Each structure stands twice: as C-alpha cells, then as structure tokens.
C-alpha cells in the first residue's frame, strides 16, 4: 500500500459548512481515510495554536484544504503559514474561492458593519458604545488582543497562491468525494483550475427546457420577474422560464442541482463555469440577455434593487471591478 | 407695406418666449392652414389668427402685434388642436401669445373685471342680482361655492397672490 496522502484542513472566516460536507461523506470518508492521513484540522476539530502549524516542516502537508473567506489579519497570517506547509493548496468552498456571501460586506465600511453588528441590531443593548478593539488593557494589567478586522473581504488567492478551487456553499458531499478521489488518484487538472465537471447546473437540471421531450420545447425570453416569495413555482418547469431568476446557467453544476430539486432557484454558490473570470458580470450579461424587454428589465431592477448584491451573491471579492475598489 | 428684413428680426428670442409660455409647438408649425380653415376667430373676421399669428411669431414679430386683440377672441374651442397634422397644438400657441401679451399688460380693460371678481369671490362671473334670481327658482340665495365660504376665498387669494399674476399687480 502506498503512503497515505497527508491532508490538512484550515478554516478561515466561515461557518465550517464545507468541513461538514467532508463529514457528510460518512462511510465513504472512512474508506478514504485508508488513503488519507489528516495531519491538521483546525480550528474546527482540534484546538491548536498558531505555532502548532508554524512548527511543522515546510511542504510537509500534501494537500491543504482552506475554507472560509479572508476577513481578519489572523486569516492572512494563517493562510500564509499553511501555504508554506502545503504542497498543494485548495480553496475549498465558495468563500475561500470567491469570497462567499460574507464577501458582500465589502460593500460597507468597517464602521458601518460595526455599528450594525454591535449597536444597531434590534437585539443589541450597547449603551456604552463598546466596540471590539484589536487590543485592550483589562484591569490595568492584562493586555488582551483580538485579531484585527481588515477593510474588506478577500479571496484566498488574493493572499496566497492557490492551486485548485472547489465551489459550493458548501460543496456537495458528492463533489467533495469526487475531489478527494481525484487527489488520491493524482488525476488532477492543470494547476489553477476549478475541480469541477465544468458544466452548468442546467446540464444536470431535469427542468432544462432543452431537455424536455419533443423538440417543441425551447427556452423563451423572460417577460416577467418573480421573487421566490411570490407564488409557488411549477416543480416541473424551468424556474427561469417562470420568471424566478435562477443562476443555474451561470453556475457550476457539481451540486447536482440540489436546490432545483426542492423548487429553489440556483443562487450561484457553485461559482462560475471555468472560462468566466467574473461571476457577477457574466450573471448580469446573461440575465440582461434573456430579459424580454425594458419592462422586464425594469421589473428585475425594482425587485432586486441592489444588483451588486444580487449578481455577486457569492463572488463579490473576486469581481473585476469590486476587487480593485 | 415695406419689405420685412427677416434677418433683422429677433426670431430666436420670440420663439423661446412662446415656448416658455406653453406654445411648445411653434417650431413644428408648417403653415399648412388647416387650423385657420376651421378657426372661429378667422371666421368671425379677426385679423390675426392661427397660422398667421404663428408665422408672425416664428419670424420674430411680437412687438408689432402685441396690441392686437384677436387672440383674446380665441374661444379655446381646440378644434385646431384636434386636426393639426403636426400635432403643434395651435391653441396652446394662441394662449402662449396671450400670456406674452398679458405679461406686458397688453390686454383690454374688459378683461380686468373677471380677474378682480376671481380674486374677490373666487368666481370670474358674479353679480349681486343673482340672489333674487336664485330665490325665484327655489334655490338658496347663494350656492355652496366659494361665494359662501370666506375660507375658500382666502385659499383662492393665496394662490393668486403667490403667482406671477400677483406680481403683475392686477389685484
């Protein structure tokens, strides 16, 4: 038996959902562990300190999975250490790859966010205006520090060199399984690629109008726009066709179209189809194309008043223009 | 009549004034004469109506015609507007000219009585004699209009006093 592949997991700013997907592999994970050796899994599984990772030998981890976005100076610090320790580094899940939903916070200043989170939410009671500080002296003697908050959210590849990307919020466990399979077998695409089958959600979606029986089925232009709170979509007809803005056409379909199966339009967590650099710009372009007329466009713009948040739901920090700003 | 030297007429300024006063169709008029052909002002024999008035204005004649009272004979019947093939709204042009005249106070004195009435009672047409007439047919001496409401009259005066008409000092 060949030597086991040494893997590490590191969570930056995120919910650990991506790691839950690994756990969701259940017995398959047990099988995989015959070939894998987890040498680092923090902070989700093991309570380790910075130095535990820093003290490992460079390139001693074969494959590192980093999930979550980069928001704190601690994230930057840890990502850089992990990069040094890993032979192959994977941006695991849409937050690490493109910034994720939390990336939308870049549309607000740090001050606005603090005000909202620590002051203005209805359930917050903060009469003394106490906000997190990177360091503070407690009782005049304990010099405590917190990780500092960066001005904006960044993707992993804006901090370190990334070898592979996996989309999804979280990645579907079957997608994770396939990725691990590829790792173990060494059948990896060229460096810098997404680990994906490369096809859109539409390709796996049973509702795709082009897949319907009989050649009379065609995609049609959108004359109305619906929010998911309006009406109940027909479970058999393409949601986009019904006016529900579904991003299935623009999004990697390694999830198997799970949202579509429960009548929810795709919101784009899979990330762009390889070849597309800018998810939001392409989403805008594609939707702008399929809207029938000015009326439908105006309807979309009135129902989704902030288009940046709509089109860049998972991808804002990776956008061409946003990342520069 | 001597030849008119059109190059010396201030066409732009007059046209601009007409537009500002609501005669936005002035540059659209092509002198087809459809408006004139059905205009009561023309039919009654007034000298300055429809297309002729518009031509005068298009060519910068304003001072020359400012005192002409034909425009005040316009019945506002709007038949011209209904048929104008250029959708130039001839009626609006006549009224724009009227407004230009009015703002230079080039109006007949008979126009002042209704204005004073309007300011005083809220009604352009009013006479004390109406009270007896009303009673004779079984009505109250005064209708429920502004004539019987000091508050309504005050509102009317507020609107008029705060308007460009108020600035003309006619009230």
């Amino acid at each position, binding site marked *: 038996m060949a030597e086991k592949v040494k893997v590490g997991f590191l969570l930056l700013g995120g919910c650990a959902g991506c790691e839950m997907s690994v756990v969701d592999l259940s017995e398959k994970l047990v099988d995989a562990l015959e070939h894998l050796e987890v040498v680092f899994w923090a902070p989700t599984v093991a309570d380790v300190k910075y130095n535990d990772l820093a003290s490992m030998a460079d390139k001693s981890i074969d494959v590192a999975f980093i999930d979550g976005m980069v928001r704190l100076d601690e994230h930057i610090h840890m990502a850089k250490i992990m990069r040094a320790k890993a032979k192959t580094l994977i941006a695991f899940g849409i937050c690490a790859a493109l910034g994720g939903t939390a990336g939308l916070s870049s549309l607000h200043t740090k001050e606005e966010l603090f005000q909202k989170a620590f002051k203005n939410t209805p359930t917050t009671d903060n009469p003394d205006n106490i906000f997190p500080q990177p360091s503070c002296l407690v009782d005049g003697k304990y010099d405590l520090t917190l990780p500092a908050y960066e001005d904006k959210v960044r993707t992993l590849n804006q901090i370190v060199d990334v070898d592979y990307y996996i989309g999804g919020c979280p990645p579907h466990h079957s997608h994770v399984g396939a990725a691990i399979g590829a790792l173990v077998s060494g059948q990896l695409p060229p460096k810098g690629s997404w680990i994906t089958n490369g096809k859109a959600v539409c*390709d796996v979606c049973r509702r*795709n109008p082009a*897949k319907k029986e009989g050649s009379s089925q065609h995609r049609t232009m959108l004359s109305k726009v619906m929010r998911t709170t309006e009406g109940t979509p027909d479970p058999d007809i393409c949601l986009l066709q019904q006016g529900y803005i579904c991003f299935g056409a623009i999004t990697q379909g390694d999830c198997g179209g799970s949202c579509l199966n429960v009548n929810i339009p795709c919101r784009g967590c899979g990330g762009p189809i390889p070849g597309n650099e800018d998810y939001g710009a392409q989403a805008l372009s594609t939707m702008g*194309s399929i809207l029938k007329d000015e009326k439908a466009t105006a309807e979309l713009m009135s129902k989704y008043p902030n288009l940046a948040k709509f089109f860049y739901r998972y991808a804002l920090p990776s956008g061409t223009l946003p990342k520069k700003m | 009549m001597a030849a008119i030297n059109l190059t010396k007429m201030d066409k732009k300024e007059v046209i601009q004034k007409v537009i500002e006063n609501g005669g936005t169709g002035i540059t659209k008029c*092509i002198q087809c004469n459809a408006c004139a*052909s059905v205009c009561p002002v*023309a039919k009654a024999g007034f000298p300055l109506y429809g297309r002729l008035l518009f031509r005068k204005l298009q060519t910068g004649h304003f001072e020359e015609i400012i005192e002409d009272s034909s425009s005040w004979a316009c019945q506002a019947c709007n038949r011209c507007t*209904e*048929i104008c093939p250029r959708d130039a709204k001839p009626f609006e042009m006549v009224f724009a000219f009227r407004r230009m005249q009015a703002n230079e106070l080039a109006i007949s004195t008979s126009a002042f009585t209704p204005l004073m009435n309007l300011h005083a009672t809220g009604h352009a047409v009013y006479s004390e004699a109406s009270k007896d007439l009303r009673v004779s047919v079984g009505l109250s001496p005064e209708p429920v209009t502004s004539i019987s409401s000091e508050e309504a009259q005050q509102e009317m005066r507020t609107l008029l006093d705060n308007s460009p008409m108020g600035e003309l000092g006619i009230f």
Partner: protein
Amino acid sequence: MAKVGVYVCHCGSNIGGVVDVEDVCKHAETLSDVVVSRQNLFMCSDPGQEIIRQDINNGLVDKVVVAACTPRTHEPIFRKVLEGEGLNKYLFEMANIRDQDSWVHANDKAGATAKAKQIVASAVAKARNLQPLEDKYVDVTKAALVIGGGVAGIFAALDLANMGNKVYLVEKEPSIGGVMAQLDKTFPTNDCSACILTPVMVDAGTHPNIELLTYSEIDSVEGYIGNFDVKIRRKQAYVDWEKCTGCGACADACPAKTPDAFNAGLNNRGAAYIHFPQAVPKKAVIDMTHCINCGGRKIGSEPKISKKTGNPILAPCEKACPAGAINRSVAVDEGGRIMDVKVGAIVVATGYKVMEKENFKNLAPDSPNVLTALQLERLISATGPTGGQFLRPGDGKKPHTISFLSCVGSRDERHHTHCSRVCCMYMIKQAKLLKEKYPDLEIYMHFMDVRTPGKDFDEYYTGAIDMGINIIRGRVGGIDTLPEGNLRVMGYDSDLAANIEIDADLVVLATAIELQDDIKPFAQKLSLTLDGSGFFKELHPKLKPVDTPVEGIFLAGCCQGPKDIPDTVAQAKGAAASAAVPLSQGRVRINPTISEVNQEKCSGCGICEPLCPYAAISMIENVAGHPRARIEMTQCKGCGVCTTACPSTAIQLYGYTEDQIMAQICALTA
C-alpha cells in the same frame, strides 16, 4: 510569436498634417510582437501596397496593421493585398487615425498624435491575437420566389424568368395585376392602365419559366441565401381551376352580396366571383366567408334530393357552371394546400394599400359623396361599377363641383409623416381627365404644396391650371354635410389669406399610401424590418435600395416606399438583377466572422437559443444525450449577442473574440 508589421499612412496631409507620423511609427516599434513599422504618403496607393507585399513576401511579417483611414472603406483593399501574397486576409487590422483622429483633432496636434499611438497599440494588440479564417461557400438553388403579383412583382418575375431562372410568382388575390389594374389612366401620359398592363400580365401568365401561384400566401420562409425553403399556402378556391374556363356564369348566378374590393367597395360582388374582367389567370373563386350556403347547404355536404323529381338540388353556382368545375359536395380543406418550394433568392413586391376614409373623422367619412381617390379611379373607369359614367354614389347624380384634398393621412403626425409621393400627380390626372370629359365641371384642388418632381410632371401640372382647374394652397380642416348630400369644404386660401368655403357635390380624398395591416407578421416570417413610416427597410437608403438586411431577399415597388409606376418598374428590374446575382454565381460566400459553439464547453442551458435574431441557433443532443447548442453558419450574421450572453464562454465570435477585445482594452489602458 506573431510578426506584426505596422504601416502608417500620411494620407497626403490628411493625417500627416496633424499627426506626427514619425513619432507614431517609432512608438509602434516598441509594441510587443511588432517587427517592422513603416510609413508612406498613401498606403493605399500601389507603391504603398507594394511595401506591405514585399514585407510579407520576405517572410518579415505575418500579421498586418495599417494605420490610415476607416476600415469601412479601405479594409477590403488591404485584405486583397494579403490575399495576393498568400497570407490569410483576416490577419489584417486597421487603425483608424484619420476619420476618428486627424480629421477631428486638427486643432490639437499633440493630442491627436498621442491618440494615434493608442489607436495603433489597440490595433496591434488585436492583430497579435488574430487567427486565420476561411471563407465558406454554399451552393445556390437556381430558382427565385417573387412575392406579390402587382406591376413590381410581374416585372421582377419576367426579368428573372427571361434570364433563365425558374420563378414562383405568388399573389394573394385570384389574379395578378395589383393596384395598377384598378387604375383608369396613368400620369403623365394618360395611357389606359389596363391597356398597358394586360399584355404584360399575359406574358407573365404564359412564361414557361414562371409558375403563377395566385390566390396563395406565404406560410413560412426558412433557410438562407441560395437555399430558402418556402412553404406557400394555396388558398382553397372551391372551384376546380383545371376545369374552370373563366366564363363567369357562377358569378352571375351567385345571390350573395359583398363589397367588391376591386371596385374599392363601390359596388357588390357575389361570393362566387372573377377578380376582374382582364384577370390572369381568369378563374373563378368562391369566397366562403361571404357564401350564404344557398339551400342551407354548406360546402362538403351532400345535396338534398328533390321530392318532386328525385334529382339532387344543386346550388346556383354548381348548376350554372358549364364546365362542371364546382362541386359543393366535395369536402375540402379550408386551410388550402401547402406547397414546398426551394429558391435561391426572393423578391418581395407586396405593394401597398391606401388608407380608408373612415380614418379621417373631420372629413365627413360617413357621407357617400366623400370618396378616396382610388374609389374615384374605379368610378371613372370603363370597367368600374358605373361602366365609366361619372355619377356620384350618394344619389347617382352627375356632380358639378368637386374638391380634391391632398395629403390626407400623409405628412400628418397622427397618421403617416411621409409624403405618399404620387397623390399630387394622380389627383391632377383625375382632375384633368374629368375636366377634359366634362368641361363644365368646377374643380378645386386643395394642396399644402404641389409636388411634381418627375419627367414631364410639372408640365402636366401647369397644363391643369391652363384648363381652368382651381389650385388652392391650404389644407382643409373640416367638411360640413349639407342637405341633399352636398358637402361644405372648409378650406383656406393662403394666397387670398382668407378662409374659403366650397359647396361641393363630391369630395375626393388623396389618402395616404401605407402597407397592409397584416404586414408585420409577414415581415417577421422573412426576418425583414420595417422603417419609421412602416415600409420595408432597405439595407442602405442610397447605395443598397433593393437589398435587405437578409441576404438573398430583395425589395421592389411600393412595399419599400411610395413610388409611381416607372419608379416601381425600375426598382423591380433592379431587384431582379440583384436577385439574379447569387443565382448566376451558383454559390454564395459565407462571411467567416460569425459565431460558433464549442460543443465541449457548452452546458446546454439554451440561453442563446431565443436570443438569435435569425433563429440560427438550435439545441441538439450530444452523444451522451445532453442538449448542446449549434449555430447554423449560413444563418448566423455575426452580431455576437449570443457570445455575450453565453455563461459557459462556449460561443466564440470569430473576428471579435474575447482575447482580441480584452487585448484591446489592455492596450488602451496601458
């Protein structure tokens, strides 16, 4: 690595007088992949072209950038140079430093020079990414379709047929002839319209290369230049045309009554009718929407049997037909019969209609004595409802005073802003014809202005004045109806500067020329567009007046805009000549700057499919059973709308690829 040659043109002093060409040349040399940068007084001259030829020949350059004027005029010239030297002609890019630089920035030489450098850099950036493209060719079906059997369609068909092409001439009415067949005489020569048109109609009807398909409509048009697949719906005539001799007995026997469109509704015809006496082909049809099913017998039902005689009771039309061409017991398909034809080119000659008087509420449209000019045409025609007797419809009295009103619905923003072009002349014609025949008639003509721009036209007009016809400048605003059917025309005489009233017995409205109400869906079938006035839009108003945006489809006659008979015939012959070009070439070139789907990248989302204005995109199944998009190259026009929309970046527009445009953006922001 590309070897880009940059050639900067002085264009005499056009560029050189403003832009520092030397400086631009030097700058070009600093750009990546640029191997040589040269200048010449006139790059498009022979010596200029020679410089490029030599560099290509010497293997020095394999991509060419010429910085000169606009590619819209000069790109073809330089592409030929590349082609001549065996280099793919699409490896060429132009930098427009004259029209968009030196000419507009003559007052800012430094600015113009700086801009020229950037424009050249952008062109070089694109050139570095250019790929060779191959022209493609498809074979042509040597047959033409002419839609519309008026004078335009007839002449186009005849010319195409005489050149040896098979022609299908489709006409929706039972006979060809169009509006010209309805006219009495024609200006400015006053020839009898029927006399000059009928022989030509017969020519078309008997030409061995022309297949006359009257009482037929276009169901669908698919395909592209050289290979159009056309479905023609042959409407059900309910008369067996193989047997019909055109005797007219059925029409005489038919008791139904419906306004006769050929006579502009002035009289009635039966449901069984012959279009007009000189019809080609002269065949009867039964118009089922107006058939009253005499004897309670609908088409396709068996006749009742007479109790007295035991014989079937036939309908009057059946009984009257001596040729046995009418058999109402035969069940027939109301939709008609679809005929498939394949043609290489199409001429659209669908003609026009005149506006109905009901549109003009101020002009007493309800009065029977207010006529459209086309109605008057029928009223004075020897084949018209009165046999040419000039009697007014209201009461059959002979009119003494007539008012003609011009520009009714034309030059009117409530209806049509265009000038209908022929009204002035045909009104003068009608007035002259009437005045010649009835010198006592008092004729008034109300014009906004009289437009007679044609050979012998103004002489024709002044002749009318000489005859004593009253010309009045001023548009009519209204008509009052007087007792006994007379009309008070309220006009204005600009020269008198006074309102005028004319008590007329008859008023004639020169109503505007417009296209038929159902023209839009028809235009969509052919992918043609209409212009602001509602006529078919030509490809270029001056230089491509018979071409359309759809290659292989051409326009003739009033469907493209109002025109008189000589102009219509001239355009028809022009359209025929243009349509004959691809037919005689035998094959047509397909521009390679079109879009293609990379099937490997396509996700089958189908977003592109409904976007294509030419329906060139279809979804096909790949081997794994997944849908994938495919673009029919012969239908693609290369707009790139699908390329922009494709979320899988699977569609490439050759000549305007992603990397080429991105390279230009980078160059311009460098």
